[in-house]
């Protein structure tokens, strides 16, 4: 009898612990996962103002503008159908280049400018992040139908 009660105690204790841990993890998950959007989805109004998310696409050629002597930099991210202006005021990563793929984390301000707090441009120069590649593929498929 005592053995059975002890076992019950263990089972209930472990279940409670695991339940608590997964509840906390799920909460952290919901609060800290950021979704990915491309410029077309932003143009379609899928993003609420102020919401943090990841923006991906290509850095439009000729769009990079620096404010001389400061860290502030402006560029345009495009998926070849729509584009979003971006402002960033930290050091840009090594592989950041006009015409290359980029992923930025941040939010939209009231004027529709994406205020980035993190910019990623990873791996070699041929590398386009998989979600960006998918956006570009979709754009390439959809674009002819529009014109």
């Amino acid at each position, binding site marked *: 009898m005592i053995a059975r009660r*002890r076992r019950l105690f263990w089972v209930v204790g472990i279940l409670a612990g*695991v339940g608590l841990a997964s509840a906390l*993890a799920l909460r952290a998950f919901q609060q*800290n*996962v950021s979704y990915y959007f491309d410029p077309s989805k932003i143009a379609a109004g899928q993003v609420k103002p102020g919401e943090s998310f990841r923006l991906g696409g290509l850095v439009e050629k000729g769009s990079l503008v620096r404010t*001389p002597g400061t860290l502030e930099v402006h560029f345009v991210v495009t998926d070849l159908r729509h584009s979003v202006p971006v402002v960033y005021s930290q050091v840009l990563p090594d592989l950041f280049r006009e015409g290359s793929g980029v992923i930025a984390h941040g939010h939209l301000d009231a004027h529709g400018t994406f205020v980035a707090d993190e910019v990623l441009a990873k791996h070699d120069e041929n590398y386009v992040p998989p979600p960006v590649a998918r956006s570009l593929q979709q754009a390439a498929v959809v674009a002819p139908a529009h014109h």
Partner: protein
Amino acid sequence: MFVELGHYALILAMLLAAAQAIFGLAGPALARERWMAAAPSAACGQFVFTALAVGVLIHAFISNDFSVRYVADNSNSALPLFYRVTALWGAHEGSILLWIFVLSAWTMAVVARLRHLPTEFGARVLGVLGVLSFGFLLFTLATSSPFARLFPTPADGASLNPLLQDPAFAVHPPVLYTGYVGFSVSFAFACAAMIEGRRDQLWARWMRPWTVMAWAFLACGIALGSWWAYYELGWGGYWSWDPVENVSFMPWLVGTALLHSLIVTEKRGLFKSWTLLLALAAFSLSLLGTFIVRAGLLISVHSFAADPTRGIFILAFLVIVVGGALLLYALRAPRMQSNAGFDLISRESFLLFNNILLVIAAAVVLAGTLAPDIAGALHLGTLSVGAPYFAPSFMVPVLPLLALLAVGIHARWKRGGLSHARRVILTTLVCALVIGLPLSLAVYGHPMPLAPVGAVLGAWIVLSSLVDPIDRIRRRLTLSASLVGMTVAHVGLGIFVLGITFVSSNSIERDVAMKPGQVAMVGDYAFRYEGVRDVTGPNFTAVRGTVTVTRHGQLVTVLHPEKRRFYVQDTEQTTAAIAPGLHRDLLASLGDDVGGGAWSLRLQYRPLIRLVWIGGVIMALGGMLAVFGRRQRGPATVPDAVPIAVARRTPA
């Protein structure tokens, strides 16, 4: 022609692996002694031919044979000789070959220790290892042979990624793989024990040193990888919860749970089926990790188009190995239960909590690592999971784990309560508070909320681990190798916790645009930017900056961060300048020319970051001490601990 020799060697190795698997598994089943005796010979042959294949590929790299596609893709005649050799594991095909080589080296280590195992059991272990090796060799030969030729032969190769041209990269993958692959030995022991349906717990004693070795290598490999990322990626990051990092961390967490659970199984005969399950899980996660990192499993889950055969092969292999082992577990593990009891407050239950919390921690990491791909496959949108999820979620199981360690280390086997240790626990806790609180509140100051908790826990673990050995030394008792190893490993963990607490709570990082002569303050340190000039390296040109660091007017160091441009790949790479120190690192990295005579710079102050890697290496050292300090045991069926204990009791 020479390179084809490597290909033939791999084919022969695969046939020998098949022989090793068949003789090793069928021999004991059909009671054929000569078959069982053939399994080690097949393993030796497989090792020879795998080594030959590796040698041939190294020769191709050294002699710049760009008619081999893998060499042409990953090497270049301008590359220094040392990096031409390490380029072997610079990409997928060579990494898998290294994996196979490490697996056959572990198999050889098992063969060398075979006389310590019963014949049938040893043959079965070799049989299971043969199955794994066969699968990997088939995978290499069918989908990713490093010996494929390239026509027409290019004049020169594409060279190795500049980030990988680094001494740490020469060591990191082999050490990491030795850890990953080492869990295949634990896996093979678990499978052999289940095939035999053993009711005793000897298999746990046999499995333990192998598991500890693999775990120690994995810890070293992860620490090396973190150190490499820190100074080579140019921006001072040492851990970013990247999927590639996570997949090496998960088997380590489960491996840690396994080696604690093995102690309970060996000493008390408890948790048998749980230990078996952990052994299967540790290796399955290693396998998953290898394929995620090296074969892009995660990407190929939803776009097989990249290389359909490779992705499907991997999935099939995972299903066969993991599914087969789990089936065996479902059939055999229930028979291997034991019913010994233990009190709520005993060493057993503390180790049980250790296991539960470590597995929860691994599950937290696994969930975050796979979530983006699961969401992608189910069309729930593209999401990304990073440090904001991992860091707090990981703390939830790990903080109680650390506190329970500091208490539970004093608990006795089977029964007891903790009343005998109440004074020790309170004394160590008070000492830890006296050390930890001033350190985090006054010395470093402005901590994050969890920093005092981390500082106290780290100090508490170090102090608690030292109590038992010091007590034994004072009473002039002998210290067993496993106690020394455990103490060293736990002290390492405490040091690691202290390091990670302060580096994550008190680091300062500033991005600034500076003109020559301007000064930026980073904590107490004044970084004065002096300017940049052009320099030339062996295979790159660079812009080199000069930053003078002073503290309270006294010169601390002069930093030379570089921005390198490599000729062959035409890529840019930031090389941070690091002034290392035991109590703090200072870093400067060069960004871009931002116009107006100014450059962008990232300046960092990282306190106690060295303790993170030192702690990790000390943990690994503890594992090694426990294994190599062990008394050489005779044939394991006779419990030889008894005569030694008797011998000791006789007065000297």
